[in-house]
């Protein structure tokens, strides 16, 4: 006997439920703001104004969104294979090492410098993800546990390298020198200047467009290719996948490789697009934000882009808010993020039943 449940119309499943979940997260955040003695309406005004009110705000918002699109896609790709990759942060961190090694030690002509650096980031991210992937596929070591631990390995390794090996000579900060051979990704204000367009100086760079392309490619991969078909089959029903001649072990490894490569996008955006050198803890936990983004975007690239922009607004607007209202610290953003994970992830089905009941009353469905 299959567990019966009321079916939800497609539009409600894709749009309404995520909206309700996010709204619930924001309402509770509003209560928290109220509890610390600030006006939530005013806070929202400041937050949105700071993120979208002017070109500079928009530039920063989209810069953050770029990172979140990449990490959200990385998490979502593994979701489709039934895997929970919590190690995106560590993979992105190691990817930064790949980009930096090319930037520091491999002089190449013209644009090829940047392209090779991007490829190196993807390669390093994939390679670092491959180890937990292999352990999951062949040794049954749970990928949630291994990827969490690999974040610490990445952190320790990079700390060691930045302090002892790669640090710029004759200075104390654990960071490398600025990449001597160029090969960085152009920022929007530089690009627009020749055309006479004045865009304020923001870290927004071409990686943003790269992330949109990545979102489209992931969509193609998942829904329009054989590999994506096999990934989804393994994710939903590994038994049927085996029956269909698909090897779950192979899919597990391939998915984590691709996920690690996508995680490299975070390093591309931050290291090649903004910092132009390798710095300690540059990932700033954005790999973990990717989990919230993927959950909220329901693992669909369109949803991920939208969720990433929302989180971009939160990060940029939150910084402005913290500046104007010292009582509301940036930790508020972490609270909202946690609530989004709670409602969009852990409690995803909480509103499902009441909404379905409500809709069933309103919309009389034609029998299938």
């Amino acid at each position, binding site marked *: 006997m299959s567990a*019966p449940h009321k*079916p939800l119309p497609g539009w409600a499943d894709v749009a309404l439920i995520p909206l309700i979940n996010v709204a619930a997260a924001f309402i509770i955040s509003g209560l928290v703001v109220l509890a610390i003695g600030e006006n939530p309406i005013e806070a929202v005004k400041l937050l949105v104004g700071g993120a979208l009110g002017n070109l500079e705000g928009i530039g920063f918002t989209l810069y953050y969104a770029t990172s979140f699109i990449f990490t959200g896609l990385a998490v979502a790709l593994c979701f489709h294979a039934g895997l929970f990759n919590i190690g995106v942060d560590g993979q992105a961190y190691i990817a930064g090492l790949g980009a930096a090694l090319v930037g520091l030690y491999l002089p190449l002509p013209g644009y090829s410098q940047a392209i090779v650096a991007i490829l190196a980031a993807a390669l390093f991210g994939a390679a670092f993800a491959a180890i937990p992937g292999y352990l999951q596929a062949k040794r049954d070591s749970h990928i949630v546990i291994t990827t969490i631990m690999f974040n610490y390995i990445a952190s320790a390794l990079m700390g060691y390298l930045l302090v002892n090996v790669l640090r710029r000579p004759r200075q104390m900060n654990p960071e490398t020198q600025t990449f001597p051979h160029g090969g960085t990704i152009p920022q929007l204000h530089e690009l627009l200047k020749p055309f006479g367009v004045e865009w304020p100086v923001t870290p927004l760079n071409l990686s943003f467009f790269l992330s949109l392309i990545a979102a489209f490619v992931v969509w193609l991969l998942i829904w329009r290719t054989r590999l994506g078909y096999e990934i989804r*089959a393994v994710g939903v029903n590994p038994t*049927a996948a085996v*029956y269909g*001649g698909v090897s779950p072990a192979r899919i597990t490894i391939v998915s984590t490789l691709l996920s690690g490569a996508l995680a490299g996008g975070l390093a591309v955006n931050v290291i090649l697009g903004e910092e132009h050198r390798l710095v300690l803890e540059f990932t700033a936990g954005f790999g973990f934000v990717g989990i919230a983004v993927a959950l909220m975007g329901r693992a669909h690239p369109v949803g991920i882009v939208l969720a990433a922009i929302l989180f971009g607004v939160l990060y940029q607007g939150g910084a402005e808010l913290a500046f104007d209202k010292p009582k509301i610290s940036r930790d508020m953003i972490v609270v909202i993020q946690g609530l989004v994970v709670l409602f969009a992830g852990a409690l995803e089905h909480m509103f499902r039943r009441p909404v379905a009941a409500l809709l069933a009353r309103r919309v009389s469905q034609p029998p299938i």
Partner: protein
Amino acid sequence: MTDNRGAAPPAIELIGVDKSFGPVHANKNVNLRVERGVIHGIVGENGAGKSTLMSILYGFYEADAGEIRVNGEVVRIRSSREAISHGIGMVHQHFMLVPPLSVLENVMLGAEGGPLLARGAAAVRARLAHLAKEYALEVDPDAIVGDLSVGLQQRVEILKALVRGAEILVLDEPTAVLTPSEADQLFEMLRVLKSQNKTIVFITHKLREIMSLTDRVSVMRRGEMVGTFETAATSPPELADAMVGRKVILKIDKGPAHPGAVVLEARALSVQDDRGVTRLSDVSFTLRAGEILGIAGVAGNGQSELLEALSGIRPLSAGEIWLNGAVLPAWAREPKAMRRHGVGHVPEDRHRVGLIMPFEACESGMLGFHDEKVYGAGVLFDRAAIVADEAAKMEAYDIRPRAPLLRTANFSGGNQQKIVLAREIERNPAVILVGQPTRGVDIGAIEFIHKRIVAMRDAGKAVLLVSVELDEIFALADRIVVLCGGRVTGERRPEETNARDLGLLMAGVAERAA
């Protein structure tokens, strides 16, 4: 319909019970009256609404409308706890037992009687001893449940209900997992319980069991209660008519087989399951072109492992598979390679194995063949080709609704099975392995599927049919091999055997060496 004018109120009375799951109307205004101290059968095809009705009685679901009366009193049952407090106990088809715990521990689970076990355990132990004497339900209380036979595990389930004070026992398809002799023991047990004035509701779709066990029988069809009969005053054909609403055609038109060359040969196959338990040992048989070889046996006697081994899903621990006169090396015994060799496979469990329920029908309809060029020559799929391919199959196999983009899960059981059949048959395989092709499938689809299988045979294909329904084996097979405990216990021609003879083989009464 009969009407009993007894003075005592009925044990259970359901009045106007109605239940829908979204667009599926599982129970339509159902009325049921079960008298105290009788064995009351409920029959109906799979999906007729029997299990839903019993789940409502047991508090798994709440009815959308209607009333439940227990011993004449209107009650509201919202959980199994409330059900048991009204004296209703349920024995599920899939046992709700914890295998590593002892019988005693399983029985007292959820009724431990306080934080310290000793007192509760002593009380339950005494209760078990009492029940063993009163109802002849003997089980060693200290035995580990995982070590017990399926029949004894079921007995533990019944004891669990009785210890909790059940006066009304509901058994959902209790014989599905039993050997014939275990089923006989169960029936004996139920008769003893009845003699002690317990009320038993027995759900099944096997008419034989209804006739031999029950006092009265209610028939359900498509969510409706179509009638209640005194068992002594009815007959299997009458019940079958009530169940399906029209004459069942079990015998299909089938000419004599014209077997050709041996296509597939199993030589001394042995197979272990995931836990390393040997499920198939030393199984040999041949399969010729143009014949249907039926594999009979009680479910769980190695048939599933045989299908998995022959289709390459499960590795052999010993033995050889020969195809067209050549032995298959180990690397060629995996699903993709077997398909390329022309071995089609309609798996026993379409939900878990044969289809991917959240996928669109057209995506499920290419599972295993998704590598083929027809679905896209380059990197990307050719969506139009995929949809057109499924649309054509839906037309040819009368799959309803004709919606290649609808999720697989939204099709009925019979139509899902046709999606699998269409996929496997349309590739024109030389050998086709068919497992339980009509399980949970409505009668119209059964006829269609049987005709297709015979048509495959007549087209010169080699068909291996695994079924636990003897009627199906007799209707289709040209030759029958019986499995019991993972071994071949006999081979028969359908015209030279009968249900009793096969029943003995299925129960493991091995053939004398010829």
